[in-house]
């Protein structure tokens, strides 16, 4: 699959989830118990269920569209939060060194030494799972990978001669960070972020599975898979469809970022490849 196809699929998906809620008859909350577990393309009480319906007879098209938006919103926001924190702390640690670096890297080690799932489970139990808390928590616990990469890059960038030149011209640390370090660190951060995005969607799904993710009646992709599990033999589409959406999103984002980096990487790789 090329980056182009991945982009097209993701584009269609995003367009669909924005457009569908605007259509009548796809209310993600409109229940009809008589239509429970309807399979795709069936008509119940005069209404066609294109992708079927869930336990409460809610139309799966509307549910999926909303769930995709929720999952994407959470993961994109969480990635943005963690990237912001990670980049900020990484830059500070790498640029200023000293006690700030020791402290920041100490916290990073600390956080790494407790698996993220456990932190999330423990803290969600305290603050209660809801959209905002979940997003914040996922964001706050995922910064370490950005922080480490940003720090490592900063350590080498700060010794680069264009930074030294700016320093001799009177540039303040803030100037150097803003004008030189940040722009040079960001492309790598975006690559890390594209990988994390998929991880976070999956992580949110796992939390939902453990009952600590998004709470009904709001759907998320992971929650929908989880809800559909016991009904796998009654209507497998309940979990297969959100599973497919997760796959398209996660694989799509990675293919795209892979595509962007691959151009450079491939050229580099084959430049010296073995005969």
């Amino acid at each position, binding site marked *: 699959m090329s980056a182009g196809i991945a982009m097209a699929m993701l584009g269609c998906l995003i367009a669909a989830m924005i457009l569908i809620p605007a259509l009548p008859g796809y209310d993600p909350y409109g229940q009809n118990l008589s239509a429970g577990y309807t399979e795709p393309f069936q008509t119940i009480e005069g209404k066609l269920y294109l992708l079927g319906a869930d336990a409460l007879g809610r139309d799966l098209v509307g549910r999926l569209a909303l769930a995709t938006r929720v999952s994407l919103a959470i993961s994109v926001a969480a990635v943005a939060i963690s990237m912001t924190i990670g980049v900020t702390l990484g830059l500070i640690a790498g640029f200023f060194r000293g006690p700030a670096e020791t402290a920041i890297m100490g916290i990073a080690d600390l956080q790494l030494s407790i698996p993220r799932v456990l932190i999330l489970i423990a803290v969600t139990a305290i603050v209660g799972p809801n959209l905002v808390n979940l997003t914040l928590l996922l964001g706050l616990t995922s910064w370490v990978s950005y922080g480490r990469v940003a720090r490592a890059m900063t350590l080498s960038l700060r010794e680069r*001669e264009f930074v*030294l030149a700016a*320093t001799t*011209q009177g*540039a303040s640390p803030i100037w150097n960070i803003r004008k030189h370090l940040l722009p*040079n660190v960001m492309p790598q951060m975006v690559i890390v972020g594209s990988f994390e995005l998929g991880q976070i969607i999956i992580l949110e799904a796992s939390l939902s599975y453990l009952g600590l993710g998004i709470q009904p009646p709001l759907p998320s992709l992971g929650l929908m898979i989880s809800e559909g599990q016991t009904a796998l033999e009654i209507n497998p589409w309940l979990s297969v469809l959100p599973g497919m959406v997760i796959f398209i999103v996660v694989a799509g984002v990675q293919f795209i970022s892979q595509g962007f980096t691959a151009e450079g990487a491939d050229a580099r790789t084959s430049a010296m490849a073995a*005969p």
Partner: protein
Amino acid sequence: MTDPVLSVRNLTIEVMTATGPARAVENVSFDVARGEAFGVVGESGSGKSLTMLAIMGLLPVGQVRVTAGEILLEGRNLLNLSFDELRAFRGKQVSMVFQDPMTSFNPVIPMGAQIGEIVRIHQPAATADEVRRRVVDLLDLVGVPDPERCYRQYPHEFSGGMRQRAMIAMAVANDPALLIADEPTTALDVTIQAQVMAVLAKARQRTQASMILVTHDLGLVAESVDRIAVMYGGRILETGGVDAIFEAPGHPYTVGLLKSLPRFDRAVDTLHAIPGQPAMVGNRPSGCLFHPRCGLGEGRVDCRARMPELLNATPAHWVACHARGETARWATRIDVDLRQRASALDRAVPGFSESQPLLQVENLHTHFRVARSRGWGREVLRAVNGVSFAIDRRQTFGLVGESGCGKSTLGRTLLGLHRATGGRVVLAGRDVAQMNRSRSRDLRRMMQVVFQDPYASLDPRMDIHDIVAEPLMINEMRDDARVRELMDRVGLPADAARRKPAEFSGGQRQRIAIARALALNPELIILDEAVSSLDVSIQAQVINLLKQLQQEFGIAYLFISHNLAVVRHVSDRVAVMYLGRIVEVGPSDLVFNDPRHPYTKALLAAVPVLDARRTRTKFVLTGDIPNPVRPPSGCAFRTRCALAQPSCARAVPELTAQGHPEHFAACFVAASNTPIRT
């Protein structure tokens, strides 16, 4: 020439570029006779390394391929062989010494095993013990001390010179018929370079191998080979015996290269610079590749229309130029021209002027605390250990020394990038260290810098305008007109403003860096190896530009370089550093014509001389530079000094005047002025 070891016929190599396949090497033919040393000279992008990789069968797959020609090694066409068939030749019949001895060894495998590998591959019957003995012998041959111990050591435990010796040992392990040395000394200091070249010669002598020496350094080929080929833009422009070419170059490009080198023997103020940029792959001119930069063929229809063929001027000297009959006359005209320009310039008088010097450095120390390599605690690295000198306005002060001598640390300390641990820096009469932060920052703006690496010194994400404007922006003096003016002054086209550094060649990038350094109207620019990574033709352009700017703006330069010829050419006064101290300082004519310190003498002796007829006294400095964390007691140079006496270990010699009130050297035996010989 009968029965050549290697015969390359009409070799053409294509590479994939952004715009499609392009010829990187075109129609290249040459022979290497048995036992001969053949030099291939060219600037970056000339296709010389690709040609060598093609001989080895090591061209990168996918992106590069040979589209025509033959490579006959001992009569067999290597291009017809498969990867596995070629393996029998590689390392056995033909082997290679690569440029960077650090990355060319596998960092996680002991050195002995890596050298032994080449023996094992081609002598599968050899026992482990035989392989081991062979490796130890080889290490001994190339002069690696204590080969038994080195056998077990890893590449990073070797110094650069030792690594390259090991590389040579590896290359000659199976007595190859042909040895290809691709820029074997480019990464090394001049004294080490001399050692390595000597080892290479010795190893060749022992194995009777033919050699191809690939280099951009004309001095190196002049000394080491019998015949050379000059490559440019993927073609051979001229080939013939070394003497013939250096004495009577037939191609204007060769003339240009020779004349753009700063030389000890001819003091001129302006170097001849080949104008323009080298012909890059995928962007080559029609007709003669060189015609856009050629001063001889200007305006000729032939030059623009048709690539000239290699034709013989004399039986052993071939030139590819439409106007090859006129080269000699044109070359003379250049010399006249340069001399005229030199006399027109107002040469600054070396030595201190009456007024106060611009920069005065007194007893400067920069020490670092580094973790001990073994055991606990930290130890002190005295990178700059009590250095004093002064730079006058409009003057160029040269600073030379091998890597690790502290010259760059000194420059960075002056710039405030390292903290001085002792001493004073007085700039324009004010002590930089004693000021508060913001005032000292103001003062430091009077001092700007141009670094060595044209790739690392420009932010790849900024465009050229922003890079040049940055110093102004930092100081809240945004001025787009000034940026345009600066770009114009350093010879950058106006349309460069919105392009990114990646689109520019090394020479152009250094121009950008210079424009940036000029932006704040500094009094002093520190040029930290600013021209060292440039090709000679470009280096000459940049040096000329620097001189021009100095004239125009009255700037002083601190010119840090390991290239003695360049320092000699640009400097009014010069200092030689060794292990954190200045060992000799004075007006550059005096230091270079009448060196007093044995180290200065050794440095000068190690520089390859262009003139092939002149045999210089080979004064090869033994050993490596000592570890600066634990320098020898007394005179730090004594461990490598031919004149060292037991008393040298006792005290550190002071700088003392040497026959001229401004010429100083720090040596106990220098005064006796003993001639150095080996």
